[in-house]
């Protein structure tokens, strides 16, 4: 179980770019993807900024090869998973591997369900059945798995905002148990009226562009996207021509068990997740060079996550930032998108900025990075995710 697992492919689509290269450019140049809502039809488009993928459903259909009436969540998943799978070179070079697809989502096909229900509520015989048959999160996964030609093991996980991290963990463990040789793991979520209105009723959305870890932050902006990594065993990695991006050296899931939507004041859940991941990787807090924060921009998350970081890392604080200042909070996809960013960070030696940070939080002695920087000796990157229901997960990616 201590055998390492390697990342040999990455794929991502988000509000800052339609693929890895575009997202990386935006991160380097400090260009946020948060904007007025233009693609989702909603009454809130003037009031609530979000980081939408800058493509219509028809454009996503052309890119993904899925029909235009397909759930947006599925199309995003397809594009990112396809990029990761192609990058890995596995299908071309070692076609007979036992391969799995572990995907995560919170919304599933609910964008299409909304359309169905609008008609169904008037008359139970109305509403197109094709809009409702892919309501379940698993339908999104199987659609993409079938297109990728992956069939040895298919799973879908849904644990709110930590979903993709748990998918990556599960994928890694399936490899370590020698049940699979390779796993495409991550997650996807499209912006939907369901989630936009849901978070709006919780009064946690910022009417302006979010400011994670700022003393005067006032909420989160939603985003959408998909992010996947391709994990393989050491044996399989050695068969590939290209070196892996990095290794997945630590991971841990813990439960805050405090409240359904808020994290405990002292950040117990995030603390346990981070320290568990460090322990698994045989690392000390001082070994971490960069933390990709969960950093949503809500009063509660940033205070709790900050408290946990203070407890664990004091006095040696690594550099840190929240890339949700670029991509918004992509919910079930966030840990997958941020895993890709973390892999790229450790592989290329980069630290991303935390945009729009003007006044550091007075409670903490550390301040997230406000400028992009390169750091060649970056060895270990920690990525945090905290979800509803107290579900906290941390992943550690390490340079080879």
């Amino acid at each position: 179980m201590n055998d390492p697992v390697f990342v040999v492919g990455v794929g991502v689509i988000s509000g800052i770019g339609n693929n890895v290269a575009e997202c990386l450019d935006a991160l380097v140049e400090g260009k946020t993807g948060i904007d007025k809502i233009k693609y989702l039809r909603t009454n809130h488009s003037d009031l609530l900024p979000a980081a939408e993928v800058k493509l219509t459903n028809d454009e996503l259909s052309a890119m993904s090869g899925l029909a235009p009436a397909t759930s947006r969540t599925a199309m995003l998943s397809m594009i990112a998973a396809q990029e990761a799978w192609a990058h890995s070179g596995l299908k071309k070079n070692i076609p007979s591997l036992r391969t799995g697809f572990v995907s995560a989502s919170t919304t599933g096909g609910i964008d299409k369900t909304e359309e169905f229900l609008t008609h169904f509520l008037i008359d139970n015989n109305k509403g197109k059945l094709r809009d409702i048959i892919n309501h379940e999160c698993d339908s999104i996964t199987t659609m993409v798995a079938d297109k990728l030609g992956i069939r040895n093991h298919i799973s879908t996980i849904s644990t709110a905002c930590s979903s993709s991290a748990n998918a990556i963990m599960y994928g890694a463990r399936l490899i370590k148990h020698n049940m699979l040789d390779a796993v495409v793991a991550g997650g996807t979520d499209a912006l939907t009226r369901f989630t936009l209105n849901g978070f709006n009723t919780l009064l946690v959305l910022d009417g302006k562009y979010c400011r994670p870890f700022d003393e005067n932050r006032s909420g989160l902006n939603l985003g959408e996207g998909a992010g996947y990594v391709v994990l393989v065993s050491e044996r399989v990695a050695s068969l590939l021509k290209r070196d892996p991006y990095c290794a997945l050296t630590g991971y841990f899931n813990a439960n805050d068990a405090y409240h359904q939507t808020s994290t405990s004041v002292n950040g117990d859940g995030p603390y346990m997740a981070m320290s568990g991941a460090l322990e698994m990787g045989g690392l000390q807090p001082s070994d971490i060079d960069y933390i990709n924060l969960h950093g949503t921009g809500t009063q509660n998350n940033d205070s709790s996550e900050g408290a946990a970081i203070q407890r664990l890392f004091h006095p040696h604080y690594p550099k840190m930032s929240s890339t949700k200042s670029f991509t918004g909070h992509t919910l079930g996809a966030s840990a997958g998108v941020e895993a890709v960013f973390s892999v790229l960070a450790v592989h290329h030696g980069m630290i991303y900025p935390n945009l729009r940070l003007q006044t550091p939080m007075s409670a903490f002695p550390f301040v997230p990075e406000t400028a992009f920087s390169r750091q060649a000796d970056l060895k270990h990157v920690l990525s945090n995710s905290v979800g509803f229901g107290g579900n906290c997960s941390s992943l550690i990616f390490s340079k080879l």
Partner: protein
Amino acid sequence: MDELIANLKGQIAVQLKLKNIKREDIGDDQPLFGEGLGLDSLDVLELIVLLKQKYNLRITNPEDGLKVFRSVRTMAEFITENRVQNT
């Protein structure tokens, strides 16, 4: 004011799904949160929605909500004050 308080109690019980609690069980000045009725932060959000839906009054900050929702009486006072301002 008494009628408003009585109506509010019924509306609160319905909105918060307090099934086994009758209007008589909720004191006018009884704290709704903490040790009183034991409501929590999600209930604050539900009460904010109740105010909007039944009385067309908006609270945008949950922390303001905690002050307004201290008891049924403070809720009734808030409604009375702000209703007057609206007309």
